[in-house]
């Protein structure tokens, strides 16, 4: 999981963070234009400052007449990014309406992701916990608060390092304190 995240982080890494300065941006644009035989706007690296975004934009420029953008992007990104990237290119196909019907009001917000951390050892005990009657409340776990000292200023902080699960080579030291 750590490895997959690193790859994804690379894709969203700003090229400036990777060390590309303004001169390098011009050189990158020129190299892309030359190698792909396309014209790119001079601010292309500024407008699309991540590897994924730049790839997607360049892929769109490569669509020849009669070919779908999706096929072009898959074909082109394989070489540029060095890996299979199923990027959703902007195609001319009709975007299907959502299952709940068309969103009429433009002031509505679409929820694209939802992540939660909840106080129960049962995975997904949030709303399903309500249905299943899982009790999230209980006594304070022993060791969470030092019950022998009423003033929390005298609570000792415990420093323990451990490695998380998964590949030990990829996961870094986990710092724990309480």
């Amino acid at each position, binding site marked *: 999981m750590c490895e997959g995240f690193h790859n994804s982080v690379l894709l969203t890494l700003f090229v400036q963070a990777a060390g590309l300065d303004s001169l390098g941006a011009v050189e990158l644009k020129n190299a892309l234009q030359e190698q792909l035989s396309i014209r790119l706007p001079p601010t292309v690296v500024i407008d699309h400052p991540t590897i994924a975004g730049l790839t997607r934009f360049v892929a769109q420029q490569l669509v020849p007449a009669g070919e779908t953008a999706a096929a072009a992007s898959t074909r082109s990104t394989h070489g540029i990014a060095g890996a299979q990237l199923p990027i959703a290119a902007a195609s001319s196909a009709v975007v*299907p309406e*959502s299952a709940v019907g068309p*969103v*009429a009001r433009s002031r509505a*917000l*679409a929820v694209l992701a939802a992540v*939660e951390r909840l106080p129960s050892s049962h995975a997904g005990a949030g709303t399903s916990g309500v249905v299943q009657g899982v009790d999230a409340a209980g*006594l304070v776990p022993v060791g969470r608060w030092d019950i022998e000292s009423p003033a929390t200023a005298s609570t000792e902080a415990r420093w323990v390092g451990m490695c998380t699960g998964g590949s030990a080579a990829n996961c870094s030291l986990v710092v*724990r304190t309480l």
Partner: protein
Amino acid sequence: MRVLNWQLLVCTALNYHTDCHSQLHDTWQLLGSTIIHLDYACLLCRFGAFLPDVASFDASLMGISNAEATLTDPQQRLLMETTSEALLTATPGGSSSSTFVSGALGTYIGIASSDYGTLVKAFTAAGAFHATSNAISVAAGRLSYTFGLSGPAVSVDTACSASLVALHIAGSEINNNVSMQTGSTAALVGGVHVQATSTSTNYVWTAGMLSPEGRCKVLDASADGYVRGEACHMLLVASAGTEHRGANLAVILGSAINQDGRSSNLTAPNGPAQQEVLKSALAEAGITGSAMDMLSLHGTGR
């Protein structure tokens, strides 16, 4: 010390038997009357909903040193973890495996406390990271820095309503930007609460707000207080009027916020004000009350 050890023994022996809660309460009261030097209130508020293993954190994955991570509020660490997961799992436009480009995302975080700072202050000397490691403002700002987000980074503190207020503010800013055709039209919206020390719980218990039974019985005649809980949530939202259509997880039709104004006391709710905000939210969403299938409430004490 003998008295304290017995308390630990009683606590451990009773364990999690829910029918012993009232007995536990009486036991603490009896002990409290014989203890003259200790603040026994901290031993009474023994209930809550706690996140398992809230302290563990993979520092290098987020690009910070172990030293800074140890000083950093566990709330900030949780926000980083959930933000990275939200960005990785986002599915714009219904596509299942595209990488969401962060870029101009706003960050609106509901956060109201930072107990961990008292531990840091008690056990470490001032260093380079102390100014930011437990600051409420940094809860949002650190996410913008870590993930390269250039939209507004706002930490919202309106106590228990903070994350919903953060969502409303994010929606207002997004819709304003859509109208003006400038600025970010997507945002991370989240909330977090970790009880790193017992201090806040002590205060709320002393104010009579917590349930001695460790149960929140809102709207019931037997309601006697609430229970403090820990959690962290993170949503990635975007204007539904733009290209983000398709198989979204949900659509937020509208929201509204207001204040009670003058009620019976500082923390008491005001019924008419709550009715008004519900009506405002329904009007904003363009639906009537009869169209709702489910109502989810914040668990207050009464």
